[in-house]
């Protein structure tokens, strides 16, 4: 029996349905797991995504042919049946289930297994083959409980406010920023947002997602007018002239990479909060177990170690080379979904400060 999904140099491909999942080259029909730039790229003839993911994609990709689908709704494409299921990564994110003649494959995109109070919570999907990310696929990555993390961030903000300092935190414009907005305590002070964050906020609010009140930072914004404020900025805005307008301040960075002291110190922010929209080690292992799958394909992250670990656990595990970047600890997510320049075969992924992959020479794609 032919594989339901195959791995090509354009992306994950379904021969039975003649479509791609999160392709990185222009194709006719693309099923998109979520709106981050490394998964949702410009240049496809037709897009299919969840209703909740569509507004951000339209915002980022412009006028594209985009059909939507509800979570759990089954749709026939060629000889394949597809459905989208919550991945818990960002609002609207999905795992894509593809069934051909009773053989079920699931492509996870990016996912996290704990509820963040914002994204539709992750739902395990039973399947025969599971394509998983493993951005944080090493046992050193274990996330704190959400309430502990929230207390840390609020404590930092409140202490700064009491000391007359502005709190500036760097986070991805889609997902991480809104997750922070959802978890912080707005009674501590006003919340200001970088333009890129506020643009995404506006899109999400328009689709009915409740977020606390925020104030957009404009060229005229002064820190002195907003004492005790929390500023949610893109990571690249930290330490720039943009950030200097806020006067005395404490900076923080929210990323899964902040679990590592070396990365934390290199970032040179005052604080590093371990906040990730990807599954930690336990989350990855639990998710894989719950699918009941025997064949596992690891896409991006510590693929070689994770594949070996899964093989030792008795899985038929493989590494797949993709162009997904996962969480890079910088602005990769905010890189524009660039129209492919002629002859360009590289992906703007920014500067991959933290490790992208434990494996410098990934084996060839395809199985």
């Amino acid at each position: 029996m032919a594989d339901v999904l195959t791995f090509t140099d354009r992306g994950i491909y379904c021969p039975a349905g003649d479509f791609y999942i999160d392709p990185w080259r222009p194709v006719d029909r693309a099923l998109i797991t979520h709106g981050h730039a490394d998964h949702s790229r410009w240049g496809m003839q037709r897009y299919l995504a969840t209703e909740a993911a569509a507004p951000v994609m339209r915002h980022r990709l412009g006028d594209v042919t985009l059909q939507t689908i509800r979570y759990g709704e089954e749709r026939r494409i060629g000889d394949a049946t597809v459905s989208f299921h919550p991945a818990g990564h960002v609002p609207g994110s999905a795992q894509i289930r593809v069934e051909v003649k009773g053989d079920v494959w699931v492509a996870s995109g990016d996912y996290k297994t704990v509820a963040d109070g914002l994204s539709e919570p992750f739902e395990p999907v039973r399947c025969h083959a599971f394509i998983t990310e493993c951005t944080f696929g090493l046992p050193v990555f274990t996330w704190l409980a959400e309430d502990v993390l929230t207390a840390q961030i609020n404590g930092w903000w409140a202490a700064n406010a009491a000391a007359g300092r502005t709190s500036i935190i760097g986070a991805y414009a889609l997902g991480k920023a809104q997750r922070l907005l959802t978890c912080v305590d707005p009674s501590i002070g006003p919340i200001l947002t970088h333009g890129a964050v506020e643009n995404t906020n506006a899109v999400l609010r328009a689709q009915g997602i409740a977020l606390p009140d925020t104030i957009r930072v404009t060229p005229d914004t002064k820190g002195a007018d907003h004492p005790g404020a929390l500023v949610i900025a893109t990571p690249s805005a930290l330490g720039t002239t943009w950030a200097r307008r806020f006067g005395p301040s404490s900076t923080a960075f929210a990323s899964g990479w902040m679990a590592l002291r070396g990365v934390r110190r290199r970032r040179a922010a005052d604080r590093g909060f371990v906040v990730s929209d990807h599954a930690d080690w336990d989350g990855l292992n639990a998710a894989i177990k719950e699918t009941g799958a025997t064949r596992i394909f690891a896409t991006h992250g510590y693929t070689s170690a994770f594949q070996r670990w899964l093989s030792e656990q008795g899985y038929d595990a493989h590494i797949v080379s993709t162009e997904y970047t996962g969480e890079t600890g910088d602005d990769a997510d905010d890189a524009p979904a660039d129209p492919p320049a002629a002859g360009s075969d590289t992906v703007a992924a920014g500067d991959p400060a933290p490790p992208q992959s434990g494996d410098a020479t990934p084996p060839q794609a395809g199985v």
Partner: protein
Amino acid sequence: MKDFAALYARIDESTKTTVKVAALADYFRTAPDDDKLWTAALFTGRRPKRTITATRLRDWAAERAGIPLWLFEESYGIVGDLAETISLTLPPATHASDLPLTHWIMEIRRLSALDDAARKAGILRAWDSLPGSERYLFTKLLTGSFRVGVSAKLMTRALAQATGGDEANLTHRLMGGWTPDTTTWSDLIETTDPSADLSRPYPFYLAYGLEDLAALGPATDWSAEWKWDGIRGQFILRGGEHHLWSRGEDLMTDRFPELAQLRDFLPDGTVIDGEVLAFRDETPLSFNTLQARIGRKTVPKKLLTDAPVILMAYDLLEDAGTDIRALPFADRRARLTQIIAATPDTAPLRLSPGVTFSDWDRLTAARATSRERNAEGLMLKRLDSPYLAGRKKGDWWKWKVDPLTIDAVMIYAQQGSGRRANLFTDYTFAVWDGDALVPFTKAYSGLTDAEFRQITAWVRKNTLQKFGPVRQVTPQHVFELAFEGIQASPRHKSGVALRFPRMLRWRHDKPLAEANTLDDLRAMLAAHG
């Protein structure tokens, strides 16, 4: 341990000196005396020695975490720090305690005396009762690798703030051979008789590199001498006993037994700042010769003959038991000259010769001859300068000769650790020998963080082969390396060994084929070796 972990976190999180000093001062105001004493010891590099091998700790940690050893090793490679890897990998603590820092240090000592099974049980118990950062710090202490981003100088400042003591006095008190076992907080910091410890050295006066010769003013205000390439040392003779301290506050007395005879020639109550130099026939030998003596606690007879040392005296800090650091350099130097003149030529002691000059041009010309004298350059000292403590600008300057340089090709890269974890920062370089690239040195420093990040991304995409943590990369990038000296070395494939190699520039402009050759290196060896 919670207080200590909180202190460590405050220091580790901040890049601001004032915040670090304030955190330490708060701690010194509130912590129990034993913990303060240990903290002062740890922050001045007086770490407890490692009593257990890293291999054992890895085995036990992997077992406790329920992961195979290879996966632990893989994680260690990414994290770059053993204690951090352990603290991140182990399951959360099951029973929290708050025992003081001193308790855990004593526990580490107690365990070191036990057999393997008992040690393992004790360490697992400790890991299980210490949450997050406390577990990390305990393990850092256990592996003898505790370090903190605060200099002894800043710690002393905090101590001065907390105790109301004088910073210079505290600096002096914290020097020397004390450990928490040989003193108490009260004796070390609070008693009024700091001279109780006869072995205690004075803080070294350190110079910055010269920035602007023209700014020094008239040449007649200055004295110059050679900057020798040995080991800076402070020789102390008090109460009939002698001690030799390194700049890093290591006691080196036993490593250089020939200096013991100076007890017979120098008056009691003498402290000399100088350079330990390999020396024969009135000529300084290369640093390479001295290297054989470094790190040897006991010295075999043959080595004493092959690499004899002397103390090249720069300055006199204590004369007849009196601290004379406040006197002008010219006066101290005159007294030093007198003392040395009274010693016989057979004594392993020389006065560092002055370089006479009437104007800066002549001095510049003299500096150009440094390398052939086995000197690193010149030291300039203002004639009326006191002997200060620590690195200070203004009165003393070092004026080193320009380094030797070579353009080399990067062929291997390895990840750093600590702040450089996850970055490829340690490179091996090669020069051309015909069509082959011959490795000849490693270098770790000299690039900016941005350049290291750029190279790291490149290394990931251009790895040809992995040898454990080392990656062989496509030969493509050329770097200009600087180094202070070159020696023949049978241990190296290239036949040469460099002194203090570092990266001066990334030569984006230089094609691979135009890197230097092994013959170029040999020519340098012939000229400067």
